[in-house]
């Protein structure tokens, strides 16, 4: 009969309409309350219908992997030896891997020797150009650059506010652990320490008197047995360096030497190009 299809469709709209009230009654109109406890009702998998999130009164917490413009990790202020120090070694991989080329790094030089030091002198990200792809964080070998969760970057003047410099970009390590605990934990496992690679190396160098244990064993040592365990924000306590389990090997010294020489060569070349 003509019109049955139409009627069937309209029944569906009617059902959606009625369902929304049934849902309201089921949850005692708590959907309309702004309390945190009721958020699950409104955004849960069981709820029917689309319910507006009352932004900016409430904000949906983004998943850990969410990526917005990058920030640089610096050591926490309460770190015993490296407080406030950059994790970045200014190796330049993020600048090279950046698709729209919005990362600018001035590599630091030792004022006495003129040699490059593993620390950026200046670091800029033009957030108007950044396409939030996350490559810099993905390919950083030092876990020093991460994608932020803070997406509220609007300003009244793009020419003064949208080039983020090092001061604006730097955020403490504890911030990263607060926005992405699982990933920070996984990175710690891969790195073998809660600290920066270099810090761990320094610590190892300090205790390099005995070169007994082989390296692979040392690498395996810091991995905690329980994977489900949530990482506690106590970096020093879980550091393998503190346990003194990682010795400094001959290979590392050679590699360090080679790296230093390569960096010098590169700096010379860059200087030549610049001049």
């Amino acid at each position, binding site marked *: 009969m*003509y*019109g*049955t*299809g*139409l009627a*069937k*469709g309209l029944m*569906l*709209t009617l059902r*959606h309409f009625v369902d929304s009230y049934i849902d309201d009654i089921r949850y005692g109109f708590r959907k309309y309350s702004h309390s*945190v406890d009721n*958020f*699950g009702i409104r*955004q849960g*998998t069981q709820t029917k*219908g*689309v319910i507006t999130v009352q932004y900016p009164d409430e*904000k949906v*917490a*983004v*998943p*850990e*992997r*969410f*990526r917005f413009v990058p920030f640089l990790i610096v050591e926490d202020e309460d770190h015993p030896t490296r407080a406030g120090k950059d994790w970045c070694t*200014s190796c*330049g*991989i993020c*600048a*090279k*891997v*950046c*698709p729209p*080329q919005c*990362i*600018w*790094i*001035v590599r630091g030089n030792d004022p006495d020797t003129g040699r*490059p030091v593993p620390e950026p002198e*200046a670091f*800029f990200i*033009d957030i108007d150009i950044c*396409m*939030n*792809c*996350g*490559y810099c964080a*993905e390919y950083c070998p030092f876990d020093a650059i991460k*994608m932020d*969760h803070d997406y*509220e970057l609007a300003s009244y003047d793009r020419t003064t506010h949208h*080039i983020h410099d090092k001061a604006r970009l730097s955020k403490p390590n504890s*911030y990263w652990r*607060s*926005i*992405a605990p*699982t990933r920070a934990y996984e990175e710690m496992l891969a790195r073998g320490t809660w600290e920066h690679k270099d810090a761990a190396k320094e610590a190892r160098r300090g205790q390099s008197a005995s070169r007994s244990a082989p390296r692979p064993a040392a690498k395996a040592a810091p991995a905690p047995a329980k994977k489900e365990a949530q990482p506690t924000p106590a970096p020093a306590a879980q550091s393998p360096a503190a346990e003194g389990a990682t010795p400094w090997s001959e290979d590392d010294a050679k590699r360090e030497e080679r790296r230093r020489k390569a960096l010098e060569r*590169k*700096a010379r070349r860059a200087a030549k190009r*610049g001049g």
Partner: protein
Amino acid sequence: MPTAAPDAPLTSTTIEGAIDHLRATYPEAVRADDREGYGGIIVDSAQLLDIARFIRDDLGFDYLSSATAVDYLGAGDHMEMVYHAYRSRGGGALVFKAQAEREQPEIPSLVSVWRGADFQEREAWDLYGIHFPGHPNLTRILMWEGFHGHPMRKDWREAYYEEEQKPFDSRWPGGHVHRAEEKNVFGKNVSYPREIDLSRLMDTSESAVYQSLGLGVDVERVMDKDGFETNELVVNMGPHHPSTHGVFRMVLTVDGETVTSLEPVMGYLHRNHEKIGERNTYLHNIPFTDRLDYISSMGNNHGYVLAVEHLLSLGRRYNEPTYRCETLRVMMVELSRIVNHLWAIGFWLNDIGAFFTPVLYFIQERERIMDFFEAVAGSRMMCNYMRFGGLFADLPERIKSVSNLVNDRARDYNTMQFLTEMVSERIPRTIDELEQLLTQNEILIERSVGVGVLSAADAINYSAAGPLLRGSGVPYDIRRADPYSIYDELDFDVAVEDAGDMYARYLVRVKELRESVRILRQILPRLEATQGESIWADGKPGAYAPRVPLGEAYGRVENGKGELGYYIVSAGGKSGTANPWRYHVRAPSFINLTPMGIMSQGHKVADIVGILGSIDIVLGETDR
């Protein structure tokens, strides 16, 4: 004219057999392309038209998927047109090329053989300056009329040009930041090339708006109040019109309210994606592909990584993606196909008058899929998820957000549970609702049955792809016709409808939604079985600057909107290069507009909006 009569009818069904047959027929005009890493044949331009007809009629390659140009500046100094022809009953490509000298390149037009070459040849003229004698309307298509130069040529440089290829030296180690606009090479001192007629830029007359469209109607004359001698009128739709799904313009010639001809005008969102792609390294391009068809970025990633992986496989150090990686890719692509079709049907309904009620019901489900993408890939739409030989990351154990300094309302689900619920309950329920709401709706049927008809023969000849092709009764789905990834082991049917009208396209999309759910149901146990397997063949992520061996590759996937192809040429030193020499996107949204004109003829103006909606385009991909 054939130089030799074919000895015998074609018996072999393989590509090699076809090429042998072709070479036997045209011994002088056809030679194998024996450059390192290349395949196919090079055809003498003088006989291209004859050979193309022979390829279509005698060899059966009736579907021209892609026609594109390459500029070999410094590597032979010639222009080359590359054609990928397929058989509409399935199988691999017959790749043939025609070359011309670089300064005044001229290659005969193939529009008389495949109408699908129309826009693609106009694009090659626009971006490369190749002249196509025999083309009915060889005008610029993406750049504006009056643009100086042909921007894809290797010696053309854009404003703010920095270097030929990324990464730029200025970024590190002495990266003192500056804005490109502060170093504007033109500054305030703009000079125009001699060829530009400045008086035309000031021309506000009606005829200037329609110049170069070849409408065959005198606009000034019909606008004249006294001129009743003609009954045709030119109507401009767009570019700023909600029904055009972006900035897209159609110029209609109408007789009363009936459309007699339609000319699509595009390029308002053109950013020379391909030139950017050639400046980029291979890895840089993946997030850029997200921005093509931004509704289904997973599919865009997939086509591109397939093409580059093909090139990488020519080298020595290459690991195939693991089974888990392929499974995850297929899952993501099928989810984005669902998103795409829900979106396409929803907005098509907006176009024909069911304003926003249906689309909101569909968006409700799309939100869940977006949440899932965000938790896995980090972004809802710009997923940037696939890598050469792997993926950005495996599935997280939980889809979880943590309330922290910046955001407060948290969510936490088990990933597999979330997926299972979505695939087995939520999405099928939404498709059922969709069908209940629409399939038998009399208004919908009256609006769409018999409107915008495209015959099967035309669909093939016009290189239509995706639901547009299958809605015309051609059961051509690349996942079956030329399988890639793990599609050959999955059980699903190719959705097809014979009518060729808007309603048939709608039904194809609904069927494909169901088929995608069917595929996802087979994916879930495969995910469980490969739990713990690495997504990278050697267990560690790929390099940040992979060197790609010399050669060419065409990677194509069945995306939501149709066949998405990437033609990539790697040329450079012996050890390969980090930047592509040629990066071309065969965009379904672009080529599917070729038959828009014939589909619209004889319909009312109000139907044009629906016909455009039923093709399903995204301007990010059309204009590139």
